[in-house]
């Protein structure tokens, strides 16, 4: 076991972890941040996406030991108790949530995409989010939700779903 200190959703955490534990497992099992989902556990599905030093990564492919000194944002870090994050709200408004299992990963990717490309084309959205699988296959609504979230962030506003 080793002591790992890292910042999660703005709060400094110091926890013990085994060398073979992943970031995903300590987030879910030690910090009880179960919004981050375990899907394939091998980097193919994107359900476990978190921001590691602001970059989206599959937390199942990161060792806990590797994040010592790093900053991690999970889905819990976007919203607060009272209010959804605007990206989450766009997913709700557009009906982009079916079973909901892929949604946290999709929302984290949308967050990362809009940080670097505030007004993405549909192709850019699909390319950026190709590592996130929706087993309900609700991709059309998800793309609409990303477009809506993007439009609402732009100064001129707008962007309501059909």
């Amino acid at each position, binding site marked *: 076991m080793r002591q790992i200190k890292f910042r999660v959703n703005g709060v400094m955490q110091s926890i013990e972890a085994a060398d*073979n534990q992943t970031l995903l497992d300590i987030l879910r099992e030690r910090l009880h941040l179960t919004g981050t989902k375990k899907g394939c556990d091998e*980097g193919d599905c994107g359900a476990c996406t978190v921001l590691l030093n602001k970059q*989206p990564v*599959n937390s199942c*492919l*990161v*060792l806990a*030991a590797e994040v010592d000194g790093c900053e991690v944002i999970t889905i819990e870090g976007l919203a607060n108790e009272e209010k959804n994050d605007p990206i989450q709200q766009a997913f709700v408004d557009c009906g982009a949530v079916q079973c909901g299992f892929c949604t946290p990963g999709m929302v984290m990717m949308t967050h990362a995409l809009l940080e670097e490309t505030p007004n993405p084309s549909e192709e850019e959205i699909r390319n950026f989010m190709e*590592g996130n699988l929706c087993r309900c296959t609700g991709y059309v609504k998800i793309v609409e939700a990303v477009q809506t979230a993007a439009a609402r962030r732009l100064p001129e506003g707008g962007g309501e779903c059909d």
Partner: protein
Amino acid sequence: MNSFRYQKAGNISEALKWSKESQAYYLAGGTDLLGKIKTERIKPSVLIDLKKIPGLRGISFYDDRAEIGPLTTIREIEISPQVKERLPILSSASGKLGSVQVRNKATIGGNICNAAPSAETVPALLCLDTVAEIVGPTGVRQIPLDYFFIGPGQTILQNGEILRKLIVKVPPTTSRGIYHKLSVRRAMDIAFVGVAVLLEVVAGKIAHARIGLGAVAPVPMRVPQAENLLAGNFLSKELITDAAYITAQSCQPISDIRASADYRRLMVKSLIEKALWQISTTIELPGGEVK
């Protein structure tokens, strides 16, 4: 996951020392390695994390070459404005590896040292006459990347040697490069054929040609016969057909779950033709268009 110890190396000599332990593995991005550990294809005793060793990450450009640290992430290479401008074929190939999440973690050194025949960045790196600088217990050596791979998952690295630097030739601005990837699923799948073509064209004539192939032989390979055929000639319809034919004859594909050997060979021919035609439309020929 099976248990193993994790050790963060602070410098090269520490990593070399620790690597002597049986079943010690170096850890770079880990996107491939952790998958292999989870599925018990490998059972490491210790993972030696190289990411904190100074000087192994980043991209520097000089007049005619770029030096790339092996721990530079694939995503950094993909989106670097300088790489886009001066090594577009490498930027394009990098953007075709895995997903954004994987590319944020995966490194170019990891992609090379895993030595998958389908390694996404390697056909482009072969076209760029990349030299691998390797450091080991007995010192430093430089090896052209053409000689780095000896079989699927096997490289010339021995006795804990570490890939320390990639020295990449920056082609002149008159060069045109293209990388084509075929995969069963466009995203999140490895290539079953990867084809990279780089031509330097002066006054319509090919001054320098490189062809790199992935996933169609036990190792990523160059095709000197086709390169020699192209060099010194004007890009004609016959030359394109001949170069594609020779390339398809030179590769040694296998049949597996993704594609048959025959299909792979056919696609190599087709993609080489496509790449050469695409390049031909971007160059100015003294006699006009390719006939």
